[in-house]
């Protein structure tokens, strides 16, 4: 089985967010980058499937050279090789176009990715990739098993779960608890250094959206503690100050 796992390099969840260039770009100074947490789950499941069924796991990232530590970590966790499309991942369409271009050159049985990146949270890439390749795309997948050429999938839906069966190849957006979250071991880290990481130039330049500006949410207000026995005070504050009642 050939599996492609698409990963994002995103700011660590504890990053203090600020902007530059007239509020159109994230201020990257001092930001620690991590693999997108949902992508991490996709990769972990890919590695488990490889252990069960054999095959290869290739990691794909659309990003500039500074994303390579994130790619190396994926190799350390158990991917066999990696491809980096050397470009700033400007929007979902552009990224999907790159993934589709790589997928057209290689017959993957599964194309896995996180259900969304945790920086812009678009959650669109898997859908666009599926459309471009003419393959079914399903998200958010919380359970995935393979039997022959069939995939058994559990997808989260509003208020419940959806059990699906589909024939490979497929494009899937993943989330927990699809796999046990993996931490690389020291040997994996050492062997990652010698695994192939191929850098390719982007296949097109069709950015369909452009960021006009970002705005931070208003800062969180201070906490006011109200003793349990003063419920009336709470209600009156909710009326007069918070104005939510």
């Amino acid at each position, binding site marked *: 089985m050939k599996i492609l796992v698409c990963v994002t390099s995103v700011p660590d969840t504890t990053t203090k967010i600020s902007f530059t260039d007239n509020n159109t770009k994230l201020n990257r100074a001092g930001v620690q980058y991590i693999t997108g947490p949902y992508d991490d789950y996709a990769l972990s499941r890919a590695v488990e499937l490889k252990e069960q069924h054999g095959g290869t796991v290739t990691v794909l990232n659309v990003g500039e050279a500074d994303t390579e530590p994130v790619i190396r970590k994926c190799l350390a966790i158990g991917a066999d090789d990696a491809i980096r499309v050397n470009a700033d991942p400007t929007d979902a369409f552009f990224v999907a176009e790159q993934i589709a271009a790589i997928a057209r050159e290689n017959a993957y049985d599964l194309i896995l990715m996180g259900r969304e990146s945790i920086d812009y949270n678009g959650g669109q890439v898997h859908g666009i990739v599926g459309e471009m390749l003419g393959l079914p795309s399903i998200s958010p997948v919380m359970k995935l098993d393979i039997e022959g050429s069939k995939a058994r999938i559990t997808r989260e839906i509003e208020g419940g779960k959806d059990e699906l069966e589909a024939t490979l190849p497929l494009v899937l957006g993943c989330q927990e608890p699809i796999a046990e979250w993996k931490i*690389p071991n*020291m040997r994996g880290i050492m062997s990652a250094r010698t695994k192939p990481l191929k850098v390719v130039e982007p296949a097109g330049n069709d950015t369909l959206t452009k960021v006009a500006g970002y705005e931070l949410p208003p800062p969180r207000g201070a906490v006011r503690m109200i003793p349990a026995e003063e419920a009336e005070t709470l209600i009156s504050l909710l009326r007069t100050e918070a104005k939510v009642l």
Partner: protein
Amino acid sequence: MISEIEENQDLIVRTVRDFATRHIEPFVREWDEKQYFPLEVMQQLGQLGLLGVLVPEAYGGAGLGYREYVGVIAEISRVDGSIGLSVAAHNSLCTNHILLFGNEDQKQRFLPQLASGEFIGAWGLTEPNTGSDAGNMRTTATRDGTHWILNGSKNFITHGKSGHVAVVIARTADPNTSHNATAFIVERGTPGFSAGKKEDKLGMRASETAEMIFQDCRIPDANRLGEVGDGFIQSLKVLDGGRISIAALSLGIAQGAFGHALRYAQERQQFGQAIARFQAIGFKLADLATEIEAARLLTYQAADLKDAGKAVTREAAMAKLFASEVAVKAANEAVQIFGGYGFTKDFPVEKYYRDAKLCTIGEGTSEIQRLVISRQLLK
């Protein structure tokens, strides 16, 4: 562009941080209060390759150097010094003694299990009456055909109770003669070997410290490490590396305490501003940051020299002395910056304050480090 070595180091450190955040941090207080030694976490650390950091891959280890090892110990200790201490003692005392002085058969028999965490290792030099003065130990080993018979006891031994394998140094010739000690590998379950009291400690409470007792304990000569009479000299060499471990442990504790203090100082408001804005607090932070940086540089210098195969007795002692005193100071100032909250168990810094103190005592007190350094200067 960062170098490959730095990128690797960064990935190792981040991996350890990920593990510590998920599998250690949530339990720190509970383990501390219950004095619970989490064997299962040690085994998980083994699966990640963190219990055989310096062991070559051929023996199932990670095959890394001291630079990476320092990063591992410091990163664990930033979250929990107890686990840092246990990982340090396992790697650099027990495992390293067998790696450095074991014969091929001994390495094959013990290193893979120690590196994988299947076996937890202990190392026994200290005795009730001989700590700093370890050369005068009373535990004896007498030859009996193809065996040795051990009698005596060792105390303050990390993993003295739960350890599966211990390297034990015992006297094999008259006291006050040179070359009078020999090192042996003792397996748990060997008749005549038992664990005594587990210490109830000020800090490092999740790291097990216990007594090991030997009563006519028969050890095959095949478990003797190196030559008869070389045990004490071997120990000093093991401790040269061990001191880099304790320097790393100290560094991690200092960084952990400082990190909490830095954050708190920016959040806590008094007199209408963050307390970090008061020069008295700002300067404390500046001094700590500077001293921690110096401790870090000394520790990595010793690690790099060791990796380059150079003599490190002086540099390792300097790193251990300085970093351990910085750890105590950083933890002390962190409690001060937290004020009354720092004195309570609801905030993390009081634990650093208790844990840090071990660093100026274990594997040679600060006084003994000064003795080692001055002897190196005056020789």
